[in-house]
C-alpha cells in the first residue's frame, strides 16, 4: 500500500486505481446516506412544505415542531421503553448463551461436538416465518401473548446460532497455551473463561452486541405477531401505527424514525472503541 503511494508520487505515470476506488466509495457512501438525509430533511419541514413535493430541498426554516411532537408524546415513551425492555435482556441473554456454548465448542470439544455445532449454526438459515404459527400457539398456550416475554425469548433463541458461531470462532483464536497456563496456575474452567478468554474477546463482544441490539431493536415481525394492545408495542410498530387513517404525517414520521434509530447509533458509538485489533498481541510469539 505504502509502496503504491510512494510510486504514485515519485513516478510521473498516473495510477488510476486509487482515484477509481475513491469515486466508487464516494458513490456508495452517497447512495447509503441518501435515505437518511431525506428523512432528516423531511423531519425538519412542515407538512405544508412536504405536501408541495419539495422532498430534497432545504427546509424554508428550521422547523423543530415534529421532534417536539414526537418527544412529548407519552405513547412514544412507552414504545421506547418497551423496546429497551426487550432489546437489553435479549441481547445480553443471547450473547451470554453464545459465550458459554462458543467456549465449549472452541476449547472443550467432545465426541459429536462438531455435528452439534453445525446443527446450532444451521438454525441461522431457518426463516422466522416457518416457526411463526407454532410460536404463536405456544405463547398463546402459555398465556404470554400481549406481553414482552415472547419477544425476549424468541430473540434470545434466534440469537444463539450467530452468537455461538462468532464466539466459538473468536475463542478458537485464543491460544490453547493461555488456557493451559491459567489451569496450571489454578484457574477453573469458569475462571479461564471469565479472567482470560472473555477479556480478550472484547472486540468480538462489541461486534456481537451492536449486531444483536440493532437487529432486536429494529425488529418488526415478532412484536406485530405477539402484541395487540398499544401499551405493549415497540417503537417500530409505533412508527407504523403513528400514521393517520387518511394521511401520513411525513414530518412526524421522519422525526420519529430518527429518534428510533438513535439508540442503535449510541450502542455503536459506545462499543466502537472496543473495535480494536491486536488484543492477543504479545500473548504468544508474534
Amino acid at each position: 500500500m505504502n509502496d503504491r503511494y510512494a510510486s504514485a508520487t515519485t513516478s510521473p505515470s498516473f495510477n488510476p486505481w486509487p482515484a477509481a476506488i475513491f469515486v466508487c466509495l464516494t458513490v456508495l457512501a452517497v447512495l447509503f446516506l441518501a435515505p437518511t438525509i431525506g428523512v432528516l430533511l423531511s423531519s425538519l419541514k412542515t407538512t405544508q412544505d412536504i405536501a408541495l413535493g419539495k422532498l430534497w430541498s432545504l427546509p424554508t426554516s428550521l422547523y423543530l415542531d415534529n421532534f417536539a411532537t414526537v418527544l412529548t408524546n407519552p405513547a412514544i415513551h412507552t414504545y421506547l421503553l418497551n423496546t429497551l425492555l426487550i432489546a437489553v435482556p435479549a441481547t445480553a441473554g443471547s450473547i451470554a448463551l453464545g459465550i458459554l456454548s462458543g467456549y465449549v465448542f472452541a476449547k472443550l470439544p467432545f465426541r459429536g461436538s462438531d455435528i452439534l455445532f453445525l446443527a446450532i449454526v444451521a438454525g441461522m438459515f431457518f426463516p422466522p416465518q416457518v416457526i411463526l404459527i407454532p410460536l404463536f400457539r405456544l405463547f398463546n398456550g402459555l398465556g404470554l401473548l400481549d406481553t414482552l416475554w415472547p419477544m425476549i425469548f424468541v430473540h434470545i433463541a434466534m440469537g444463539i446460532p450467530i452468537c455461538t458461531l462468532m464466539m466459538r470462532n473468536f475463542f478458537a483464536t485464543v491460544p490453547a497455551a493461555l488456557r493451559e497456563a491459567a489451569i496450571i496456575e489454578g484457574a477453573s474452567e469458569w475462571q479461564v473463561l471469565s479472567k482470560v478468554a472473555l477479556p480478550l474477546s472484547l472486540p468480538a463482544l462489541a461486534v456481537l452486541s451492536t449486531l444483536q441490539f440493532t437487529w432486536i431493536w429494529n425488529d418488526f415481525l415478532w412484536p406485530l405477531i405477539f402484541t395487540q394492545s398499544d401499551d405493549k408495542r415497540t417503537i417500530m410498530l409505533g412508527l407504523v401505527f403513528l400514521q393517520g387513517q387518511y394521511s401520513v404525517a411525513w414530518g412526524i414520521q421522519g422525526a420519529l424514525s430518527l429518534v428510533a434509530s438513535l439508540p442503535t447509533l449510541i450502542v455503536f458509538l459506545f462499543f466502537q472503541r472496543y473495535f480494536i485489533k491486536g488484543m492477543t498481541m504479545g500473548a504468544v510469539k508474534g
Partner: protein
Amino acid sequence: MSTLILKNIHKSFGAVDIIRGVDLDIRSGEFVVFVGPSGCGKSTLLRMISGLETTSSGTISIRDRDVTHVPPAKRGIAMVFQSYALFPHMSVADNITFGLRLQHAGKEEIARKLTEIADILHLTPLLDRRPKQLSGGQRQRVAIGRAIVRNPAVFLFDEPLSNLDAELRVSMRVEIAKLHRRIGATMIYVTHDQTEAMTLADKIIVMRSGKIEQAGTPDALYADPDNLFVAGFIGSPRMNFLGGILEADGQVRLDCGATFRSGILPAPTTPSAPITLGIRPEHFTGTDEAGGTVDVRVDMVENLGGTRFVYGTLKSGQAVIVEDRSESALRDGASISAGFPARKALLFDAEGRRIRSSDTANAMAAQ
C-alpha cells in the same frame, strides 16, 4: 530424596502409543533435560507430569504423593511454555501474581513475593507494562517469574528458548542455569537442542519413540553412550559411524580397509560379527597413537577460527567429519591421514547396541 517418580507410564491416543513404559526417578534439586527428535514423546511426557495430558496407565508421584489423577493446579508444579503464554490483557505484575490471586493470597504476601521475584529476574522497571511492550527475552523472564512465584515442587520447561534468536538463547540459557543454582529447585526441561541439554542438565534423558534410550549425566552420555541413537544424538558435529567387522581375535576391520585392535572380543558364537565403529570428530588425532588410521579425501573445510572441521570421504565412500587443530594448509580434494586411539573408538553391534570392553562389563557387573 526423590521429588518425582514415574512408574511404567503409558500414554496412547486411540491405537497410537505415544509413551511406552517410562520409569524415572528425579531427585530433589536436579536439573533434568528430556531430549530427543521431534515426535519422540518428550513434550507429551512433560504434559503428563503437568497434568495437562491424562495418563493411560502407570503412576506419577510428586514428593511421595500419587498425583496421577490429580488436577494440574494441585500437583505442586509450574510450567513455562514455549510460546510464553502470558495473559496479554494483564500487566507484568498481574501476570506474575495471577496464581497467587486465584488462591486468594493476602495482599501483603502478594506484594512481597512480587518484589522478590521482580528483583531476581530484573523485572522491577517493567512491572506495569503489558506483554506486547516487552522483548522476547523479557517475556520469557515474566513467564519464568509466574512459575517461580508459587514456589512449586517441580518446574516444567517446555522448549522455553526455541522462540528466541540465537544470541538471546545463549544468554537465557545462562540465566536459567543461574536461576537453578540460586533457588535450587527441581527442574525438568524439554528441548530438541542437544547443546541446551549438554550445558544445562545434571541428568539428560534421551528419548526416542516414547521410550527412554538412556539416562545419565551429560558426560556419561557423551563418552559412554549405550547405543547408536544416543551416540549420534549427543554431540555436535555428530559422531562418525564407520561400518566394519569384529574378528574373533578382537581385530576390527573397517570397510575402508583400515584395521586396529579393539581390545574387545566378540561373543564366541558370532566370530566376525558386523559392527559399527563410532568415533567423534575431535578424537581424530595424528597418526602416532595406538589405534586405527583412516585415509580421508577432503571435500570441504569448515573453519571456525579456533578449530576447523574437515568434511571428507573415506575410500569406502562413507562420509566422515574430522576435527583438525593443526594449522597446516588444507585444500579441497587433498588427502589426509586421520588416526584415532583405540580407547576412544566405540563399537556397536548390528542392532545398534554398544559392545563394551570386558573391563567395562566387569566393572558394571561389580556395581
